[in-house]
């Protein structure tokens, strides 16, 4: 998946969103979540984050990239989070980078942060016991070919035990 995004109608961040993101970024720089690195760009609205597979897990030594796009009314609305390039082989991660994780969609709360999302994603990776695509990967990816955002998917969340 290229980094060109998903045709999300890119509205500029509201003042509240920009303030909050600025504060989140500052906090991140002081206290980054373990295993993640924010790649500096000139955009506050799109973050690129390096993910390092945790030691003693199936993904040890591997590196992935998350793209996080913030909507106008962040944090009232959830950011759009996808893996770029080659996403980890994981039963909840589709080959187009979409992630089946409830907090990114229905269970999002404005009290969550990019940092808390990262921690959830890493914990999802670390608890995996098998490196495989979701069983409906082909079909799902085909359905998303027109550039549909994962936020437009009606997710049936896979059960927690991987």
């Amino acid at each position, binding site marked *: 998946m290229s980094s060109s995004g998903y045709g999300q109608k890119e509205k500029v961040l509201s003042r509240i969103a920009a*303030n909050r993101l600025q504060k*989140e970024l500052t906090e991140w720089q002081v206290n980054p979540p373990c295993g993640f690195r924010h790649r500096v760009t000139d955009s506050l609205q799109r973050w690129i984050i390096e993910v390092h597979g945790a030691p003693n897990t199936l993904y040890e030594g591997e590196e992935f990239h998350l793209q996080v796009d913030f909507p106008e*009314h962040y944090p009232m609305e959830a950011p759009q989070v996808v893996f770029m390039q080659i996403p980890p082989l994981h039963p909840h991660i589709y080959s187009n980078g979409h992630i089946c994780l409830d907090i990114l969609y229905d269970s999002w709360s*404005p*009290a*969550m942060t990019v940092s808390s999302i990262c921690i959830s994603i890493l914990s999802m990776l670390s608890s995996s016991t098998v490196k495989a695509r979701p069983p409906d990967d082909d079909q799902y990816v085909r359905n998303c070919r027109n550039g549909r955002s994962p936020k437009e998917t009606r997710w049936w969340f896979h059960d927690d035990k991987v």
Partner: protein
Amino acid sequence: MESEDEMQDAWAGTSDDEFQNEEEEDEDSDALASDDEDDESDYGFGFNDFQLSTRRPQTIFTVLSEQDIRQRQDEAVATITNFLSISPADAGVLLRHFKWSVSKVNDEWFADEERVRANVGLLEKPATSKRKNVKEMTCQICFEVHPFEKMKEPRCGHYFCEICWTGYIHTAINDGPGCLTLRCADPSCGAAIGEDMVLGLVSKEDQQKYMRYLLRSYVEDNRKVKWCPAPGCEYAVEYQAGVGSYDLVCKCGFSFCWNCREEAHRPVDCETVNKWILKNCAESENMNWILANSKPCPKCKRPIEKNQGCMHITCTPPCKFEFCWLCLGAWTDHGERTGGFYACNRYETAKQEGVYDEAERRREMAKNSLERYTHYYERWATNESSRSKALADLQLMQSVKVDKLSDIQCQPVSQLKFVTDAWLQIVECRRVLKWTYAYGYYLPENEQTKRQFFEYSQGEAEAGLERLHQCAEKELQTFLEGDSPNSSFNDFRTKLAGLTSVTRTYFENLVRALESNLSDVDISKGAVKSSNSSKASGSSKARGGRPKSGSTRSGGSSRSGEEMAHWSCEHCTYVNTTATSSNVCIICGYPRS
């Protein structure tokens, strides 16, 4: 035959063993083949049979306006507030969770208050007290520092600033009715956000949206209340009591089925309606031509436009051929003039002569099945358009024509109610008749007795309705055209009122008979069989559309076939059945000659 069930099995042909009794089998074939005396008699079984056995208790509904709904909500909240000694906002949370059932809230609460509280997110002891001396706080959503007065929490201790709460609730309201069960913004907390907090924070516009969802939840979450499906109608209907038909009339005038929310469809059940609608969708491309309002005159072949409600069409001069819109047969073959048998409702499969190979037979069957559907669909659709036309005529009658009639005939408007009554009846009968075609389409072909009875009754209903419709449409016209009172107006009144009343009774009974799935037909057939009488008959003289067999009534000995015949009134031409009136015309009171 011992029981009704057995009878029905036998007639549905589900079990060949039922036919082991030769006598019965013979009886059956005799009935179909014999060319007996007084064959008319068999069709005379009026609907009187059905009146006692199938009258159903009324189903009771209440139509609710928006104000009624709000009042009910307020009452429910007040009751719960009172019983449980909680705040109105908490009562609202509970009622929404338990779909507005006061008794359910009570039962669950007193069974296990703690569990209910946990499920709906009502905390028992507010966690507010612990922050008493705090002057400032950082909001965990915007990460800004705010004075303590600007921080709010829904009694769970999760403080966020007012701006963030407002944004949070605004987002939820704009996401849809889920805002009614909104929980605390802290992802780990399930505390309910009640309407007091919502309404205290959001804009006027959001308040209105929220109140709208609140109103809707009373109807949409409540199994006993539904919205009227008429476009733009804001009434809801509450089911009160009773079983049976679910047809009802909303205060907006639209009649619909409470159960499936399709337009009213007595006498057919919801399942049949659903099947029929799906069938119509599937076949809609094949059927478009049927809805065309023009057909060639069967005699002179010029296109004729149907612009009236009844099916009796007269071609324009010089042809003036009178024909039936549905079957394109001569009108003289319809109705009383041929002895009371109206048969263009009947579908007969094309003769399959000289069909040799399998492929050809398949084609023939496919053609027949489409033809058969076309037959029923056309009659269904034509009755529907006839109904809409009648509805428009009724409105015109009410708004203009009754006044005009009152002027011309020097009659007070109050004396002309019989005219609007007639039109109301026509509208209702067209609706019923329409649905009998869906009924007929799904009535199994192998249930011959039922089919014959059904087709006969439907034909009679149709013929009766045509008489009424024609009288209200065409005969009325002559009284609207004159400019001075017409001496025969009183006769017209008697006739139209009589036709209205007879047609109403006939249709009511037809509806009941079909709703009971013609179960009495089998019973009466059973009586014939066991009595070993040979009265049941058909007639080879009968023209094509005529039922070839009919059943006689149960316990028929007291009412012979002769008595059950029809007789046509010399005065008004109405076809009376001896079942309802043997010596005097039910319409005009003229004695039978």
